């Protein structure tokens, strides 16, 4: 869920959160959202620590704002307050560039529980099931405080989930053991030790120790003796599976490697598989672990390339993009019935969004393409809103939109998702996404809810929002950061259609934003997208997202060099998402235990 900031409608929330110095006040009161809102010095040089510039040459810290940019209004009356150490990750002073903050404190690194989807996928793969287990929806939901569902922060086993696992294990093991054909698919032999060795390795993602084998042989024998067993072998199999499905070594990704040492091949295989395919390592990948292939960067790269070619990787990248940009909100997008749009439009928009990022990933494109491409996906009804003919008639097809709509953020899925039920653009929400998810510019906590700004017959959406967010405690965030980014899309209405006027008044899309390179002006969305495509900040943000997702944890200052390296690859070399992933998984950070974080 995107947190929306709409001051004037949620004054109390932001009055506390945004604060606002005298200088903030001065700027806020003169800023209508179309003027430059920040200083150009980038704040306190001391705040631009050494970590903001690394050998890769990337500048993503507050000291990287570059030279002076022509100003359209007088500079602030007072010097901005530099961020203190206590402010890290909260906010820079109003109008200052906001550096990428890596202030995560990941806590669980030796034992990270599988997400529910990983649990489901792993069981299906381990047990060779073609259909879903039917138990995924029965698991007590996780409540992750972080952007990505695989983040280690909340993946724990409380009593309710324990019971869920138990029930699922009992049901699945009995069903499987009663299906002789399925059993044969799982293991062709008829000996207990062979079964335990082969299937146990899949569940533990490593060979079982002799002690573990012995333990499971005892369990197998116990199961064989149960009176209800159809035969000794299936009885043993059933109980072994029931226990394996509840075993901590299955439920957790367990890394035993001492801090600072390279992960074992099996541990690398597990990281790779869950990152790229969201499932357990295949037998083939475990064999690469066993033969030492995964002990080298080249071996890891080769294994990763193979995984990236699988459909599971595409599905996982859908998950990545969906969680990055909160595509789950499509499910609750309630378009105004008066718009007479087809009820299926929600699904069409969601599928079009995913198809866009499918193309990015599968076509070996990177962030620039996300921001600049004129390729889009649309169904009939969507094509109509674009003012184009639909080329096929069924499903979402690829279209070319032209120069007025560069990149994903000028396309219908983004624009309609961030509207008030399609009736009016939600400019603040649009700005929040660009600020938070494209630039990773951390601002204070937002108001809990957003509601449409009041309507006035004689005013544009832009001027209304500017007025509503003019209070000092709001303007420090809105006028400096959020509104200008959102207003760049003012030539798109709530349904994402292009418009030249709003309420009969010509729309204004120009603005400026305090990038870390300096405050830069843009005339509208195309220029903003072009600025973002060259922005160190945007590429650093992109690198941060994929690194967080890949490492399944928040990032700490120690991760800065890796993020900078990947950001440089993205910006300087125009590296594709696929290439960024390969660089990530072959990095020492991915393959080594980096301290007891």
């Amino acid at each position, binding site marked *: 869920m995107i947190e929306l900031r709409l001051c004037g409608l949620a004054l109390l929330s932001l009055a506390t959160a945004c604060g606002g110095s005298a200088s903030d006040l001065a700027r806020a009161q003169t800023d209508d959202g179309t003027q430059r809102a920040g200083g150009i010095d980038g704040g306190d040089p001391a705040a631009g620590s050494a970590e903001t510039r690394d050998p890769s040459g990337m500048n993503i810290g507050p000291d990287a704002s570059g030279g002076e940019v022509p100003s359209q209004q007088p500079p602030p009356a007072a010097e901005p307050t530099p961020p203190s150490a206590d402010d890290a990750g909260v906010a820079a002073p109003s109008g200052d560039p906001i550096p990428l903050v890596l202030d995560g404190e990941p806590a*669980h690194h*030796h034992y990270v529980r599988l997400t529910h989807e990983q649990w489901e996928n792993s069981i299906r793969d381990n047990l060779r099931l073609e259909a879903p287990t039917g138990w995924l929806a029965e698991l007590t939901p996780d409540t992750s405080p972080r952007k990505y569902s695989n983040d280690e922060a909340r993946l724990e086993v409380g*009593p309710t*989930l*324990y019971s869920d696992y138990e029930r699922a*294990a009992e049901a699945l093991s009995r069903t499987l053991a009663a299906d002789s054909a399925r059993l044969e698919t799982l293991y062709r032999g008829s000996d207990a030790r062979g079964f335990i060795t082969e299937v146990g390795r899949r569940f533990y993602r490593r060979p079982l120790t002799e002690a573990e084998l012995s333990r499971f042989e005892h369990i197998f024998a116990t199961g064989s003796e149960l009176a*209800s067993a159809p035969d000794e072998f299936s009885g043993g199999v059933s109980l072994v599976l*029931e226990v394996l499905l509840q075993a901590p070594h299955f439920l957790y990704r367990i890394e035993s490697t001492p801090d600072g040492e390279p992960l074992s091949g099996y541990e690398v295989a597990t990281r790779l598989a869950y990152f790229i395919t969201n499932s357990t390592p295949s037998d083939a990948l475990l064999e690469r672990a066993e033969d030492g292939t995964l002990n080298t960067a080249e071996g890891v790269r080769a294994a990763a390339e193979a995984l990236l070619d699988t459909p599971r990787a595409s599905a996982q990248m859908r998950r990545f993009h969906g969680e990055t940009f909160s595509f789950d909100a499509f499910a609750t997008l309630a378009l105004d019935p008066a718009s007479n749009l087809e009820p299926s439009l929600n699904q069409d928009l969601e599928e079009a969004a995913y198809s866009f990022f499918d193309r990015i990933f599968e076509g070996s494109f990177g962030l620039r393409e996300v921001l600049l491409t004129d390729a889009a996906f649309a169904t009939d009804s969507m094509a109509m809103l674009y003012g184009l003919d639909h080329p096929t008639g069924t499903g979402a097809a690829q279209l070319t939109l032209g120069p007025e709509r560069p990149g994903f953020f000028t396309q219908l899925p983004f624009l309609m998702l961030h509207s008030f039920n399609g009736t009016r653009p939600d400019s603040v929400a649009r700005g929040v996404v660009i600020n938070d998810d494209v630039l990773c510019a951390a601002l204070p906590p937002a108001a809990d809810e957003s509601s449409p700004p009041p309507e006035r017959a004689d005013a544009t959406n832009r001027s209304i929002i500017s007025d509503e967010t003019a209070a000092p405690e709001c303007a420090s965030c809105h006028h400096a950061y959020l509104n200008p980014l959102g207003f760049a899309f003012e030539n798109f209405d709530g349904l994402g259609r292009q418009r030249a006027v709003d309420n009969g008044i010509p729309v204004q899309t120009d603005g400026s934003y305090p990038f870390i390179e300096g405050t830069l002006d843009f005339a509208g969305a195309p220029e903003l997208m072009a600025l973002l495509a060259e922005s160190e900040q945007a590429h650093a943000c992109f690198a941060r997202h994929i690194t967080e997702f890949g490492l399944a944890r928040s990032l700490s200052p120690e991760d800065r060099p890796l993020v900078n390296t990947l950001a440089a690859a993205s910006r300087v070399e125009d590296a594709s998402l696929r290439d960024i992933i390969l660089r990530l998984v072959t990095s020492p950070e991915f393959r080594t235990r980096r301290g007891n974080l």
Partner: protein
Amino acid sequence: MMSTTKRNALRMASRRTFLAGAGGIAIGLPFLESVPDRSAWAQSENPRFAFFIGTACGVVQDNFWPVEVGQLTDLSSDTNAAGALAGLERWITFVQGTSYPGTSNGSSHARGGVSMYTGGPTDGAGGHTAVAVGPSIDVVLAPYLNPDAAAPLTLYSGLKSGWIDERLSFDVDGQIRPAEGNPFEVYEALLGQVPADGGAASTDVNLSELLVRRKSAIDLVRDDLQELLGRSGIGQADRERMELHLSSLREIETELTDAPVVGTCSESSLDVDAIVASAEIFRSNGYIEQVAELQMQLAAFAFACNIQHVATLQIGDGEDGTVYDVPSNDRGWRFHHISHRIQSDSATGDDPLALQAHIEIDRLRLETFRRGLVKFQEHGLLDRSVVMWTNSIADGPSGSGNNLPSIVVGNAGGTFRTGLHYQPSQGGIPNSRLLTTLAFALGVNETVGVDGELMTDLLV
């Protein structure tokens, strides 16, 4: 005020003291040892159980429900009445939004009692004589769930002043079915139906197998978790996560191993001394909760011994003069007056002390409910049952039937969703939908009351 000594008398009474106090009353003690600790029903029979509890005088809505809506995680810190059910979260679903169909004249207590489990309107000339126009859910279910389609067990706790009295279970013609308020009578009747071998199915190997299987898993999980905990070099957070997992395991393990009567027909789950003593005081003021708890014990016993699979328990009728001994009721007001917030059977006031007393009574009632549920849990019944707790009215002062306090415990064999505070609305959903949904979850495809639409969100 009732003295502490008197309050605790029932719980403290031993069989010996009761016999002395009975002064020659001819109540013969059953030969308890004749009931062996054996399973009464074969797991392969896949029995399902249903127990419906009706209480009176409404609840204080603002202080009743869990604070959080959605997934139930930990009620232990919940200061509302719902917090009394901490520890059972994974078995419970709080259902908000249900209401009675239509309105009719007369006492809301009697009408609510009628509609509570019939899901239909009321009939009858006078308010306190309201009757149903169709059967209550227990009567609907009994032919499907009960051994030999026997009539459901009908229990009572309270004074029975003669004004409303029992009004919860109704036969197919909508006529009131009498409820037994004396736990000892119930106990004797049940013992008389326990087969000589305890009803045990000698071929009931599945129960013992279930225990063997679960123990195999628990043993391995425990050993692995302890090994992982003992590793050097892991951080505090990792350690705490393993400890949480281990703690969760212990909770499951406790259910498995510390309950000697799991899935068995055994009188060891019964507080027999108190049951015997209850014969003397079950209609005395001040014991309504203790008697209710004993009746819950007996219902669980009846289920585990395969005597009954369906039962109801009415706790008071709202206008019977019940006085609760809670800290804010030093004035000794009747519960009916407390619920009206004024010492009147008809007017409505806003007495703050009465409000506080009502809040305390709600908590006390759910504490009773919890203790009774533990007996169901010990018998291994919760994953085969639904136990529902509700009230004849939703809110005391208003007498409203909107947003009834409904709590369902147990998953009906895996078909009813649990671990949830479900709040689709603040009212307006016919309570018959919830009743029909419960019947459906129990495998009975019958409409209960006026509206047969299923609440599919609550079904697995």
